[in-house]
C-alpha cells in the first residue's frame, strides 16, 4: 500500500510538472537556445573548429547565396525606384529617387530581405540536415567517436553565418542601388546626375552601418535558430519536415521583431552620440 501511495503521488506531481512545463514552453525554448549558444561558444574558445570546416560553411552560406541576394536586391531596387517615380512625379519630387532607394536599401530592405532569403535558402537546409543527422543517430555516432558535435557541426556554421551575413547585405544594397539607377536612367530617362548626386550628400556612414549591424545580428539569429531547431528534432522524417517549417517561421518572426527594436535602438543611440559630438 505504502509503495502504491508514493507512486500515485509521484504521478500527480509529474502531471502537474508536465502542465507547468507546457505553459513555460517558450521560455524554456529560449533558455535552451541560449544554452546552445553558450556551449558552442565555450567549445569554440577551448579549441577552434578546423579551418577546412569553416571554409566549407563560408562557401555554402556566403558564395552560394550570392545569386539569390543579387536577384532580391536588384528587383527591390527596381521596384523602389519605379514606385517612387510614379508616386512623386506629379509632385515634382523625382529628384529624391536615388536617395530614397539608397536609404531604404541600406537601413531596412537590404538587411531584412537578405536575411529572409538566407533563412529560406540556408537556414531551412541547415535545420533539415542537422535534424536528419540527429534522427539517424549520426550525431550520436560523432559523440561515440569522441568528437564534440558543438565544435564539429555547429561552431563552423555560427562563425560563417556571422561573417557572411553583413557581406551579403552590403552586396544586395549595392545591387539595389544599381537596379534603381538602371530603371531611372534607362526607362524613365532621368539624368544619371539627378539620381546619383544627392546620395553622397545625404547618405551617412550611419545608414550603411545600420545595414551592416542588422545583417550581423540577423546572421546570428538565422544560424542559431536553425541549429537549435535542428538539434531538437524528434520523430523521424515527418519530424524533420515539421521542425524545418517551424524553424523558418520562428526565424522570420524573430527577424521582423528584432528589426523594429534595432531600428529604434540604433537611431536613439545615434542621436545620443551625435549630441555628444
Amino acid at each position, binding site marked *: 500500500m505504502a509503495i502504491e501511495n508514493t507512486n500515485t503521488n509521484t*504521478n500527480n506531481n*509529474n502531471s502537474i510538472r508536465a502542465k507547468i512545463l507546457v505553459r513555460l514552453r517558450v521560455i524554456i525554448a529560449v533558455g535552451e537556445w541560449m544554452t546552445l549558444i553558450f556551449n558552442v561558444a565555450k567549445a569554440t574558445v*577551448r579549441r577552434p573548429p578546423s579551418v577546412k570546416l569553416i571554409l566549407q560553411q563560408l562557401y555554402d552560406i556566403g558564395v552560394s547565396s550570392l545569386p539569390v541576394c543579387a536577384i532580391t536586391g536588384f528587383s527591390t531596387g527596381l521596384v523602389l525606384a519605379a514606385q517612387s517615380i510614379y508616386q512623386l512625379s506629379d509632385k515634382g519630387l523625382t529628384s529624391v529617387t536615388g536617395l530614397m532607394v539608397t536609404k531604404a536599401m541600406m537601413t531596412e530592405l537590404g538587411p531584412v530581405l537578405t536575411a529572409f532569403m538566407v533563412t529560406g535558402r540556408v537556414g531551412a537546409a541547415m535545420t533539415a*540536415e542537422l535534424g*536528419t*543527422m540527429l534522427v*539517424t*543517430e*549520426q550525431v*550520436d*555516432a*560523432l*559523440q*561515440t*567517436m*569522441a*568528437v*564534440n558535435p558543438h565544435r564539429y557541426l555547429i561552431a563552423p556554421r555560427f562563425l560563417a553565418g556571422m561573417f557572411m551575413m553583413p557581406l551579403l547585405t552590403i552586396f544586395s544594397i549595392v545591387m539595389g542601388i544599381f537596379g534603381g539607377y538602371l530603371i531611372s536612367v534607362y526607362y524613365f530617362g532621368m539624368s544619371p546626375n539627378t539620381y546619383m548626386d544627392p546620395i553622397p550628400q545625404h547618405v551617412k556612414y550611419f545608414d550603411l552601418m545600420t545595414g551592416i549591424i542588422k545583417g550581423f545580428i540577423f546572421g546570428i539569429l538565422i544560424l542559431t535558430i536553425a541549429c537549435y531547431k535542428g538539434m531538437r528534432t524528434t520523430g523521424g522524417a515527418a519530424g524533420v519536415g515539421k521542425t524545418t517549417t517551424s524553424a523558418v517561421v520562428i526565424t522570420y518572426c524573430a527577424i521582423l521583431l528584432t528589426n523594429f527594436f534595432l531600428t529604434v535602438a540604433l537611431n536613439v543611440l545615434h542621436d545620443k552620440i551625435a549630441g555628444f559630438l
Partner: protein
Amino acid sequence: MIKIRDLWKRFGKLQVLAGMDLDIQEGETLVILGPSGIGKSVLLKHIIGLLKPDQGTIDVGTTRITDLTGPDLFKAVQNMGMLFQGGALFDSMNVEENVAFYLRQHTDPETGHKVGRTEIKERVTHALEVVGLPGTEKKMPSELSGGMRKRAALARLIVYRPKIVLYDEPTTGLDPIIAMQINELIVKTKKELKATSIVVTHDMFSALYVGDRLALIRDGKIAQIADPDTFIKIDDPLIKFLHYTISEDPRALKEKNHHG
C-alpha cells in the same frame, strides 16, 4: 571491466531502467536479450555516455563514466565504439572518409601524433577488406544497401581498434544471409581487436552464435544471466519462446565454420 550499479532511467512516464546491476568481464562477449522497446539500446547509450542516468553508476575500468561531462567524457569514450542500428554513416561523406573519420580527428594515443596519410589509407583498405567491402571507398552511403551500410559502419569502428565495442541490434532488419555475415564479423572483430563486446538483440540465433554469456532484460533489470548452455535451459517463458524460434543450435555451425 564494466561495472553497472543500481542504474535508473525514466523517459516521461516510462520507467526504462529500474535499478539495473550488471558486470561485464574483460574480453567477453555479453549478449543482452529482450523484446524491442525495453531499454536495451538505452543501456548501451548509458555505457558510452550518450545518456545520463537518473540514478546509479557505471564504471569502465577505473573511470566513472556517469560522473563525466564535456571533454573528460569525450576522452573517456575514445577507446569505445558503437555500431548503431541503421549504421549511422555520415551521409555527406563517402565510405573512405567515413572509415577514416576517427583517425583524421584524433591523435594516436600511443605516439601522440596524427596518423599519417599512407597509414590511414592502408588501415581503411584493411578494415574494408575485413568486413568484405573492398573497393567501395568512393561510394556514398546512399548508394549502399542496408547490410553494406552496416558493414561499412563496422569498418569505421574496427579501424580505430576500440577496446570496448557495443552493438545495437546488429542483425535486425537484415535477411538471414547478411545477418549471418554480420554474426561472423562480430566473432571476427572480437578476435582481431581482443575487445570486450556487448551485443543487444532479440535474435536468439545471433545471440547463441556470438555470445560468451547471455542476459535477459525484464522490467528494467537483468532478470537472468548465464553461459549459453545454462541459459537455454532456464525455465522462463520468454527464453523458451526465443529458443523455440531457432530450429538448431547455431553453435554447431560456428564450430564447423571455425574449426572445420
